[in-house]
């Protein structure tokens, strides 16, 4: 439909909706922004007005301070807001706490911008809700047929088993501080691991925020306290960059682990010196990406960022009109 490009288009600042006059997840400061979720490459500070879920706004405030934007508008899931003649609704995306798909209605066209999403169950956030649409704008971080993520519960079990096998060593798990860390904690709790979990200081604010939103994480203790405990036999969760850092030296013969979709590929794990790769991802894998498109049956399928080449090929083989927007500025290396 010709109207798609009038409703949404790519600009140097990112995806822009001309009739509503707002950007979605802009990568540079803009006057009006709709933000899908709190990861720093999607939710930047310095915009004029920001519209997002209350959870995402809380995450941005915790990360950037209350003055992260000139003005904010909290829109709960499902509420309909109108901008000029475009209606905007936020719908759960299943990515992290507060993450949303942006559903736009304009002149009879329904467009869904997925943001980052996944289809699997996650005890720390609401599940992805499919919305039938004419235009589906999707991420493609793991848009290659090599990514079929195993059940996340199996990966948590792998970690627990390794802790039992190496009681004298610290399991040092790299996990993104927003979303991945809390999901991993919740998975460990679901698997019956009820000992305290030890946290790098960079995890504290997001853990507290999740707990304040009613996500139970159990006992969390600082990994580095005055006693300089080496924590043998314990699980320590830290930002991925800290695993290789001097910070890691205090622990007992640590086993470096990393919770990420990239751990599906051996070379990626070896490159980071990871000895216990845990394939836990908050993004859609190849099956989720392709099945979602098949389920929504959009007239057009646009890809914002990631590995778009294989998805374009898949769309061609399946007779689906697809376009890669190649929006720069999103980084998912630490996913």
């Amino acid at each position, binding site marked *: 439909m010709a109207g798609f490009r009038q409703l949404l288009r790519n600009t140097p600042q990112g995806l822009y909706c001309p009739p509503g006059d707002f950007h979605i997840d802009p990568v540079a400061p803009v006057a009006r922004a709709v933000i899908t979720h709190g990861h720093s490459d999607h939710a930047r500070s310095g915009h004029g007005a920001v519209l997002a879920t209350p959870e995402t706004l809380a995450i941005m405030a915790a990360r950037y301070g209350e003055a992260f934007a000139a003005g904010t508008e909290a829109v709960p899931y499902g509420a309909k807001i109108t901008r000029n003649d475009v209606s905007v609704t936020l719908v759960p995306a299943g990515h992290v706490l507060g993450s949303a798909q942006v559903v736009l209605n304009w002149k009879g066209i329904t467009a869904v911008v997925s943001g980052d999403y996944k289809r699997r169950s996650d005890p720390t956030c609401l599940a992805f809700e499919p919305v039938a649409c004419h235009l589906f704008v999707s991420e493609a971080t793991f848009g290659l047929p*090599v*990514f079929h993520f195993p059940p996340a519960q199996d990966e948590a079990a792998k970690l627990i088993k390794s802790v039992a096998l*190496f009681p004298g060593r610290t399991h040092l798990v790299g996990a993104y501080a927003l979303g991945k860390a809390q999901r991993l904690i919740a998975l460990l709790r679901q698997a019956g691991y009820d000992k305290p979990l030890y946290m790098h200081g960079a995890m504290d604010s997001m853990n507290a925020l999740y707990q304040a939103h009613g996500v139970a994480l159990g006992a969390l203790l600082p990994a580095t306290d005055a006693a300089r405990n080496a924590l043998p036999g314990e699980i320590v969760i830290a930002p991925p960059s800290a695993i290789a850092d*001097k910070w890691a030296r205090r622990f007992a*013969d640590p086993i*470096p682990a990393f919770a990420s979709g990239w751990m599906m590929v*051996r070379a990626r*794990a070896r490159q980071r010196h990871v000895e*216990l790769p845990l394939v836990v991802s908050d993004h859609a894998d190849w099956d989720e990406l392709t099945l979602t498109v098949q389920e929504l049956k959009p007239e057009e399928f646009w890809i914002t960022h990631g*590995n778009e080449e294989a998805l374009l090929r898949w769309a061609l083989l399946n007779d689906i009109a697809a376009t890669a927007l190649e929006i720069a500025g999103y980084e998912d290396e630490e996913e």
Partner: protein
Amino acid sequence: MKAFARLLDQLAFTPARNAKLTLLRDYLGSAPDPERGWALAALTGALSFEAAKPGFIRKAAEARLDPLLFSLSYDFVGDLAETVALVWPHLPGPNREPELPEVVESLKLASRREVQQLLERWLDALDATGRWALLKLLTGGLRVGVSARLAKQALAALGDVPVSDIEEIWHGQTPPYGDLFAWLEKRSDKPSADAPARFRPVMLAQAIDEDSDFARYDAQNYAAEWKWDGIRVQAAHEGGQRRLYSRTGEDIAAAFPDVIAALNFDGVIDGELLIFRDSHAAPFGDLQQRLNRKTADAKLMEKFPAGIRAYDLLVEGDEDLRSLSFQERRKRLEAFVARLHSDRIDLSPLQPFASWEELKQLRAHPPKGDPEIAEGLMLKRWDSVYEPGRPKGPWFKWKRDPHLVDAVLMYAQRGHGKRSGFYSDYTFGVWRRDANGDRALTPVGKAYFGFTDEELKRLDKFVRDNTVERFGPVRSVRADKDFGLVLEIAFEGLQRSTRHKSGVAMRFPRVNRIRWDKPAREADELPTLEKMLD
């Protein structure tokens, strides 16, 4: 198959030997028979299939996935078997995941064509890790860093028995090793070690401590001989069976048919495998041409003829000599070797000496001929019986002082385990003149030990403070004529190498001293190193 696949997967990511041992022991203690036996055989190389060629595997995958999607995936992953394992569409439904024993039994019976059909069915039913493990098994190389020795140690840990007990009976056992596991789990007696030409666990020497041992031990009680620079072997010919074992009990006969043909005796000798030229030992580099091969062709054997320099006689005819003294065994050995009249088996001569001081001079200035390329000296108590392991006192090795060279630190890489937060693997170089006569550093080796924890902290700080560039886990460190860190590197020998840019390769390099005081421009030059070539 799931547990075995999981084990292979973890072993592949685990660099530390002790951690590998824990993983193996855990698996061998929990997997059922006969699965664990087949797994053990696959890990120790007793079982290998080359049932599927890469071309076939790729074609099978492309029949299930668009070739362009496959090639995009392959570009991203970089390894064929891994790509196939990841992209293969899982077919849930009636397919049952195959068990390892079923895979092994089927492969033994199936024709090549049938194997291909079986393989596809199995791939349909397995998960990604299972598919990866299966493809590794079928393409004939597990390569997860497990030696036969390590597997035997895991078995010893499982049964709480000395590893020499395992080695002694190992060659009488066949996959899937039911008797072996039954014994280790105390369900039956120790399997018989009476198999002819079986491996006898080897006696090893302690390194001598020059500061204390010479005062403690009397020179008169010891015999001395040269420590030849080959590999320690045990050669057996008993009951019509000929075997050649490495010192950990791996049968290496297939790679040395020339040596096997020379075992025209009835007994078991202990000696050094060497390349012989006109009855003289060739340097280790020559032997290396014959090591780690599955077979040897006539041309290779002609160019690098192998033989044994005998140290000891363990069995003669039906008589086990291991409980006799070294002195008596030595007499028997001398007569035994003399009767052979072989140009492939000679005697390691004893080196007479009157005092430790005299021996010290010999070690520093070996006589012309073979001793010049020996690794050092061996000291053996005249009254020592042949006992497995490394007992302290009866046998000592006294290696020659290593070569030393001053090199400049060029690159550093992060270590593993305890050292995972430290830059602990160092690539170093020496100066070399290019065509214009300008001096530039060329890398000559890599060392990752030889320093204390305190020194490691300082080295790590130096690396972090002086990083010029980063490539993944590697940092390039500032090293030029005006600035750089000089490392005194000790190494055992130097060989020509076409694989290294500098043209030389070191044996066993380690950091001997850190020369914080020495200016980088005063480090050694490549010609200095080339003079040390073996």
